[in-house]
């Protein structure tokens, strides 16, 4: 049985679609059977980033409404990898055309055939978000080192917890080490102080991302891209949950660690 991941953020434009394309291509490059689902109905992008726009015939709404014979018909095979597929979002339909229950059913079906089902979530916390997370058992939160993006990520983590989806993992995107060092940007410690979730990895700000998105060739396949290298490492961590990138001591210790510190102070 494959795993179903949702890639989500709350705030828009932080790099969810880019992450989905890169993780999907990276996993496929390492031999995994992968299917990507774009749930950003009305604002479909994932096909562009993968360079598959001109192959679209059916879309997600057609699949869940049974307008095509089977999900197979709507699956677009990637140009580079035999084992990577995309179900594109509908461009001219409503978000309400898909329900969380339909997404659950679809994910249950797809995980029988694929090792990884990656769901690209739209921005926001409304209907589209609910659809995207419904069938997922794991979540990847994408954020940038900005106060507003981190605040929204925190909100999303709270909503996922409310749905019984704990232990989401974090991708910190568009990191500029120089600015972080000068204290001009939130540091990973600042961010983890609030979010306090496992870190999948940090992706640097990289022009190659923009160039590769425009060409429809994910950066993860470009050996000279720094962001690509970061995504290759993230793919490894995704495959093996024990490989974690930790910056702060583990969550579990937190409360008691703090309490001890507190009482140590009191006694002093």
């Amino acid at each position: 049985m494959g795993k179903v991941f949702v890639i989500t953020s709350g705030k828009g434009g932080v790099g969810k679609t880019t992450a989905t394309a890169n993780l999907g291509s990276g996993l496929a490059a390492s031999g995994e059977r992968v299917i990507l689902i774009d749930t950003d109905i009305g604002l479909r992008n994932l096909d562009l980033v993968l360079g598959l726009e001109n192959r679209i015939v059916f879309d997600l709404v057609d699949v869940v409404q049974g307008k095509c014979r089977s999900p197979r018909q709507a699956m677009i095979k990637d140009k580079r990898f035999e084992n990577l597929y995309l179900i594109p979002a509908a461009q001219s339909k409503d978000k309400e055309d898909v329900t969380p229950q339909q997404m659950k059913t679809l994910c249950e079906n797809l995980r029988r055939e694929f090792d990884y089902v990656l769901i690209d979530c739209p921005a926001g916390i409304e209907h589209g978000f609910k659809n995207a997370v419904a069938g997922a058992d794991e979540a990847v939160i994408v954020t940038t080192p900005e106060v507003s993006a981190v605040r929204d990520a925190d909100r999303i983590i709270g909503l996922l917890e409310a749905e019984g989806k704990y232990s989401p993992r974090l991708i910190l995107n568009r990191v500029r080490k120089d600015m972080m060092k000068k204290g001009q940007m939130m540091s990973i410690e600042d961010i983890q102080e609030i979010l306090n979730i496992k870190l999948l990895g940090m992706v640097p700000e990289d022009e190659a991302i923009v160039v590769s998105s425009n060409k429809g060739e994910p950066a993860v396949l470009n050996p000279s891209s720094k962001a690509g290298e970061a995504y290759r490492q993230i793919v490894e961590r995704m495959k093996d949950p024990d490989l974690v990138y930790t910056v702060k001591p583990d969550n579990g210790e937190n409360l008691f660690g703090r309490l001890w510190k507190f009482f140590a102070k009191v006694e002093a």
Partner: protein
Amino acid sequence: MGDGIVVKGGREGLTLILSPELSLQELSTVLQEKLLKESTFFQNAELVLDFGARPFQEKEFSAFLGILHSAGIRIKGILSDNPITKLMAKEAGIELIGNGSIMSSRVRIDHPVKSGGKILKEKPEEVHASALFVRKTLRSGQLQHFNGDLTILGDVNPGAEVSAAGNIVVFGSLRGIAHAGIRGDQTAVVAALELKPTQLRIADCIARSSEEWNEDHVPEMAKIERGSIVIEPYALKHKVLRSLL
């Protein structure tokens, strides 16, 4: 009477028995009329609401409480025979009084007892929840209210809000909004292992986030002194807390 609402005075104060026969909308209307008509009677009273076996849909409960709240009604606690309603009340930080509705057990709704009459008998198993422990981090957008003392074992993140009729203690970082003594208790305090709230209120006093919050991670406590909020190191010598571990 006969409007589906019966008012009783009991050990818990004024209790409104709300017939489950009425729809929520009818109930809000009747309630509002009643409270307006007898406003002096209800002024500053804290009410106990008896919902009987009424089931609530998701969100209905908090919406209904919201209506009451905006009408200036303070709720001391509720009585209910419905397990889901009880759960919702618990989650909303509202005290559950007694074991269930008094409709089912002692009093029938068509036989109202004059206010002031003693209806609720002392029951040995009756528990008074005056403190609530919440064992999680409150994230942005999450609210936690309690009609007593509130303790959070976790953080209160920016964008999250905690409020309590009594004191608030956070075993973690308090970076969101905190309001202690929300019903006017000026002696309430807010304490945290790390006190960096966006906004902090005690009773009617407000303190906003500024550079003043301590940068070190030391436990601190906020309280009202001579009409304004002051912050001081929180040195608790009690062994009581230690026993929590």
